[in-house]
């Protein structure tokens, strides 16, 4: 079996895991919980194999084109972190790993119902956006060790931020008392928008003509819903979306009762939310900003050129710095900082995907 097959199976398993964790939260049977963990671990093992096989493939590709490079350099150049697809896959791998560590350390499975959807949605996004999955040769600008470590550390950082996002949503679900609280409205709208965009992209994908999937974003993005040539469809999309958010807002509070009956406590969630940021922030500072700047300096001749990707990394960094100061120096606690954690993750999503999809810039890296 090749890398793609292993990967498809692991994707499938992650979706099953997500469903099982959610089922566990709903019916609270220990057997279901064990099944969820088992499926997640199986998916993780298969994904690890897929990742290594792909590494071997791209190592061979590199060596066939560059027979004279040293073994170590060829291994580094072969790292499957060269385009948006591979980086998303690695992101999912990191987030599942971090989640499993948390599960074993805190001995709670409830968070899985929040983290696994983040992983599964990232995987769904891969298929829905129709991005290229080919093992591609490495273009000249990417042939740098700095870049490799930059990508590696950034994605571990992003994954940690993803876990903090999940914990913050769970926390907000748990602590908000009524639908009219600002924090409650905030999380329901945000999660709602995330889901709507994903569903809309799914519809784009389904209605897309079979052949040219290359330029998905430019040609298809939201074209079958919000940006449809038919006004009726466009208006209907807005109405349905608003109805969806209202629905989430109306019934999301039910989740609270569900969560309340679990072993997970709000202190635990708050701690996971903070700890993930405390791990993600230094990694992102060093790997994302500093190594990115060093790489840019060696490739483009300038460590900082205010291109959109750089600016959005800076924005994300400032947002999380704001979080840390609000929490540790200004002494904010609870809902206020959880909202900041959600906003920080919006920064992550935009830095990671939004810039590649919507904004132009120097970063040829990661285009679809």
């Amino acid at each position, binding site marked *: 079996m090749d890398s793609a097959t292993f990967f498809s199976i692991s994707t499938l398993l992650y979706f099953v895991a997500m469903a099982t964790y959610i089922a566990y939260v709903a019916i609270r049977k220990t057997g279901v919980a064990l099944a969820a963990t088992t499926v997640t671990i199986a998916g993780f093992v298969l994904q690890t194999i897929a990742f290594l096989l792909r590494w071997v493939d791209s190592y061979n590709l590199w060596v*066939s*084109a*560059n027979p004279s490079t040293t073994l170590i350099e060829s291994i580094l150049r072969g790292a499957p972190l060269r385009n948006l697809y591979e980086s998303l896959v690695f992101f999912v791998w990191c987030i599942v790993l971090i989640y499993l560590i948390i599960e074993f350390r805190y001995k709670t499975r409830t968070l899985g119902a929040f983290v696994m959807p983040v992983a599964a949605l990232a995987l769904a996004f891969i298929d829905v956006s129709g991005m290229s999955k080919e093992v*591609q*040769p490495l*273009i*000249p*600008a990417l*042939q*740098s060790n700095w870049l490799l470590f930059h990508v590696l550390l950034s994605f571990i950082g992003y994954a940690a931020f993803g876990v903090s996002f999940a914990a913050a949503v769970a926390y907000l679900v748990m602590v908000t008392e009524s639908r009219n609280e600002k924090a409650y409205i905030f999380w329901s709208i945000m999660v709602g928008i995330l889901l709507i965009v994903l569903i809309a992209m799914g519809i784009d994908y389904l209605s897309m003509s079979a052949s040219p999937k290359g330029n998905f974003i430019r040609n298809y993005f939201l074209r079958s819903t919000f940006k449809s040539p038919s006004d009726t469809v466009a208006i209907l999309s807005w109405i349905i979306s608003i109805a969806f958010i209202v629905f989430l807002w109306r019934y999301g509070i039910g989740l609270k009762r569900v969560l309340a009956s679990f072993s997970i406590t709000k202190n635990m969630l708050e*701690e996971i939310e903070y700890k993930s940021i*405390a*791990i993600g*922030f*230094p990694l992102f*500072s*060093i790997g994302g900003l*500093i190594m990115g*700047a*060093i790489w840019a*300096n*060696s*490739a*483009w*001749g*300038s*460590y*900082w050129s*205010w291109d*959109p990707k750089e*600016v*959005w990394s*800076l*924005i994300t960094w*400032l*947002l999380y*710095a*704001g979080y840390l*100061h*609000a929490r540790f*120096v*200004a002494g904010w606690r609870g809902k206020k900082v959880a909202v900041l954690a959600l906003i920080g993750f919006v*920064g992550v999503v935009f830095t990671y995907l939004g*810039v590649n999809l919507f*904004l*132009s810039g120097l970063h040829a890296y990661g285009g679809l």
Partner: protein
Amino acid sequence: MAEKKNIFERIWDFFASLKLAIVLLLLLAVTSIIGTIIEQNVEPAKNIQLLTKIFGVKAAPTLYNIFVRLGFMDMYHSWWYTSLLTLFALNLTICSLERLPKTWRLIKRPITPLPENAMENMPLKREVRVKTSLSIAKDEILNALRKARYNVFEASDDSGVQLYTQKGNYTRLGVYIVHCSILLILGGAIIGARFGFDGFLNLPEGGASSYAYTRSGDPVPLGFTIKCNWYDTRYYPGTDTPQEFQSELVIFENGREVLKKRIEVNSPLKYKGFTFYQSSYGMIPDAEGEFILRVTNNRGEEKVLYLHLGDTFDIPGTGIKGRIVDFSPALGRDPSTGELITYADTMVNPAVAIQFNIEGDAHGAESGFKGWILRRYPETGLLPGGHKVEFIDYWGVEYTGLQVSKDPGVWIIYLASIVMGLGLYVAFFMSHKKIWVRLVTEGSGGGNSVRILIAGSTSKNRLALERQIEHILERATETINQRQSQKK
């Protein structure tokens, strides 16, 4: 009555406020978004088009003018953005200075014994009882603490003994190191912008220059001469995906060659403060170049030839003559008609057409044949009879585009990066820990059991200290029990 503050104190307080810091962090984050949507430093038409798309034809020109006034077209250098950054730097400096003395006192303050009721009130505490004498219990706790590299002090009163210790005092400085590195980065950036140079230089193959050019086209003397020997794009085998862009550059000083280097995208040439990066390439319009061919006969004798369009050459010892009749920078086949075409105007797939004739052949040109030899496919140059013609390069028709920069501030940035890395490590992964242990003899008479109360406090990561304290207790009680059983 509270004393009225003078203006200086009020300004100081304003900048020392942490609220300002959070506001500035968020304000910088939000305003920075503008420059990622409006394309920076491009011709007006592009952004007017964007504005038209969002706000309609009517509003676009007015909005554009307002945006220009606000500096949005080069916003990261606009007066208000630089002011925000200046405020940020001032805030960071003053806020840190304001807090530093307090932190310094915390670092320097020697640890003192705690009264028992204060220990009871600490959020992190453990209590055990062991059957042993006070001195043995004390010894073993002391050992366990020392093993964990604590420097322990001791005090005793009439009811018992207290051991107390702290470590990691200086880790409280971690955040200040981080802040300092941020200021260093801003400083390095200012030095780079002030004293640095950011320009370009396009050199044709074989061309040389003693100047580089600023973005606005003004020449700036380099103080030496730089020459491009050749430029080349390498492709992944069988594809048009570039594998490497490279140029060979030579530095001359006073007419003498002092340095030669083949540069690639991630491997620039540095000389006397200037760095030359491979940034682009292109064809020189209407240039006449030189064909470099290598011919090899079937006995392995080879010769390198430098020729022009229309020139003839022969393959030594064979009587085969060739004449260069055509050139294509990118030879390919039209997918529908199958005809040979030139599909790009850069040298993606260079090919040379050669008319071959056999010397002494009475039929002349008619008996010869014309063939395309492709540089990227050497097998196209194999002739019947085992002779070979290789197309090495069409030299002198491409130029290399070099980004030239000089940044005296970059070392400060690198230094600051290292400082920030260290600071972040200290700030997030190390902590200032304090531990108090109180040992009291219990039981009637001389007593045969000791109550050990242990409490701790830490600047962060309480869980880790909790685990450490448990570990210390475990280790101590274990050895105490061992000693007890040996005594029996």
